[in-house]
């Protein structure tokens, strides 16, 4: 049984078919790349999986169970976390607080005990903070743990998005252009971190990325979309030489 399966996922926005009958399966432990020119429908696929949009037709399965149209917060609780292409942190909150929000799914005390500040609520908050701190260390953000996230440089904001998503303890991590706007050094570090998330933490990763070197070096399977339709699927060597893919990217003048 695949971890995530998209079966004929289709979504229309008015007259526009943003994604048409996309079908792919992600196995546990995959480093799965989703690429394609601008406007190909990649982010829309993420939105279908995470319940931001309900597919016009087709379905999404997670661990064999249908999750089509499940609201985003329930999808997160099931074990799918994501980052956003146009960074969506909680700007006024500190780095640490951003990550604690991601960890909240696993808190165990009720609202009432927080309102009267019982020791159990304090202990629970401390526990989530400690867990968040571990993730912050893994993503190399400990020097800015108390900085407002809006004040971080771009590259660190992207890493914080990953830390926050990791805090939900997902099985499947969706990364939407995690290396966008990073310099070569940062992007190199990120590549190693993402690989570590799979190798050391057992996460399955689905990633959208425009930086071809990044995708080709990292991913083991690549799914290519163009104008909402699948044009290729396979390992990096195959995708690199696929005439259809080259054509699609040349058409975009990349």
């Amino acid at each position: 049984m695949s971890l995530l399966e998209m079966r004929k996922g289709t979504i229309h926005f008015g007259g526009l078919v943003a994604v048409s009958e996309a079908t792919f399966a992600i196995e546990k432990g995959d480093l799965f790349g989703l690429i394609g020119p601008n406007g190909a429908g990649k982010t829309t696929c993420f939105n279908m999986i995470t319940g931001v949009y309900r597919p016009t037709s087709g379905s999404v399965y997670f661990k064999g169970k249908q999750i089509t149209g499940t609201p985003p917060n329930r999808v997160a609780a099931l074990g799918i976390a994501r980052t956003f292409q146009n960074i969506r942190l909680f700007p006024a909150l500190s780095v640490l607080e951003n990550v604690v929000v991601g960890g909240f799914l696993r808190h165990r005390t009720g609202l009432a005990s927080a309102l009267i500040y019982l020791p159990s609520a304090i202990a629970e908050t401390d526990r989530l903070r400690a867990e968040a701190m571990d993730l912050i260390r893994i993503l190399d953000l400990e020097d800015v743990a108390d900085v407002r996230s809006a004040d971080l440089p771009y590259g660190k904001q992207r890493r914080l998005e990953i830390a926050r998503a990791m805090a939900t303890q997902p099985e499947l991590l969706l990364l939407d252009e995690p290396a966008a706007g990073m310099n070569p050094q940062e992007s190199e570090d990120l590549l190693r971190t993402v690989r570590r998330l799979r190798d050391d933490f057992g996460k399955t990763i689905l990633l959208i990325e425009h930086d071809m070197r990044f995708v080709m070096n990292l991913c083991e399977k690549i799914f290519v979309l163009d104008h909402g339709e699948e044009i290729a699927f396979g390992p990096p060597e195959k995708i690199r030489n696929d005439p259809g893919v080259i054509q699609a990217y040349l058409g975009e003048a990349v």
Partner: protein
Amino acid sequence: MKFVLGRLLSIAAALGLCFAIDVFAHSQNDYTQRLVALAGLYVTLSVSLNLINGITGQFSIGHAAFYQVGAYCGGFLSVRFYDGSPVHGLLWLLVMMAAGAAAAAGAGLVVGLPSLRLRGDYLAIVTMGFGEIIRIIVQNVDAFGGPYGMNVQPKFLHIWLIWLLAVSCIAVCRNLVSSAHGLQFLAVREDEIAAGAMGVNVTRVKVTAFMLGSAFAGAAGALLAHFEGFITPATFAMDVSFIILTMVVLGGSGSITGSVISAAFLSYLPEYLRGLKGPEGGTLAVTGASVAAALFATIIAAGIIRRLLDQARGTPRSRALGVAGIVGATLIGKIVIQWGLLFIPYLRELKIEAGQLRMVIFAVTLIIVMLLRPQGMLAHHELSWAFIGKILGIKAPAKAVTPA
């Protein structure tokens, strides 16, 4: 053990403060007593609206409606059932507070659930409409006394209880934002979509905040009804909602401390203006000067705090000088305006009572704050020891400080 002790100390301190306020108020005349009581109610109202608008990022503009629901619920129950009830005195008042809170929270659920599930500012429109609907219903129901209002018996003059409610409201909000639970509320304010993607049940958080805020307003309403002994629909008109909203915005949406300070300040201001009798006996000149002074005070408060916060540079001494400079400039500005206005003969004759201008003052204050410092006096900051240290230029001990 340490926890129990600390908690007992805090509760004792809160009670002590409330009784001190009570003793002070009761040593004054009736008018001052009422002022102190109203200030306490306004603190509760603005801090509870701040929970909805500032902390959770929703936009409710009809908070007086929930105040009214609580007041009429408590008042009506007292009129009907106090005689012959087994419960008397303070205990009865506590029951009425709980009833008012429950009724307002229920109303909050009915109003909030449909509008909070949607994105956007539907809540603003719905709460405004709800306020008017409640007012009109009450006006047309004879059991509530219609437009003439309702006598509420028995009366209670427990100013300490009014302030205890205010302190509890502050404590609850403060506890919330310092716990992981509260971060969910802040996350919803910051970015609903991202919060949802992190597993936060956005609708539930919003409805919870709305019901909790409404419940405090309802409890305050029940206390008002029994303190005044008389309530009319006019007590809860739109402008009361507007005043509460101004308090929250002026204090800095999201800052509990800001809400408290501006509630105390703005609930006193109109009374101050109303009672003002200058040498000319309430002419426009005097009024104008007071208005100008009030506006200046607002701008200055905003300016000072901005200086302190945004200019982390500079020595404490230079900052103190800056503050003194601004205060001096204000006083001079006030005198110039006062004399300038008195100089124009026509204006000197024109009689306008300061009290009539209070809504104008609120509106202008709101506009000025929005233009000069949209984040309000304290922005998101809270008054804490660490914050005071930061202002004074003292480094806080290395411990994660959590600004709300």
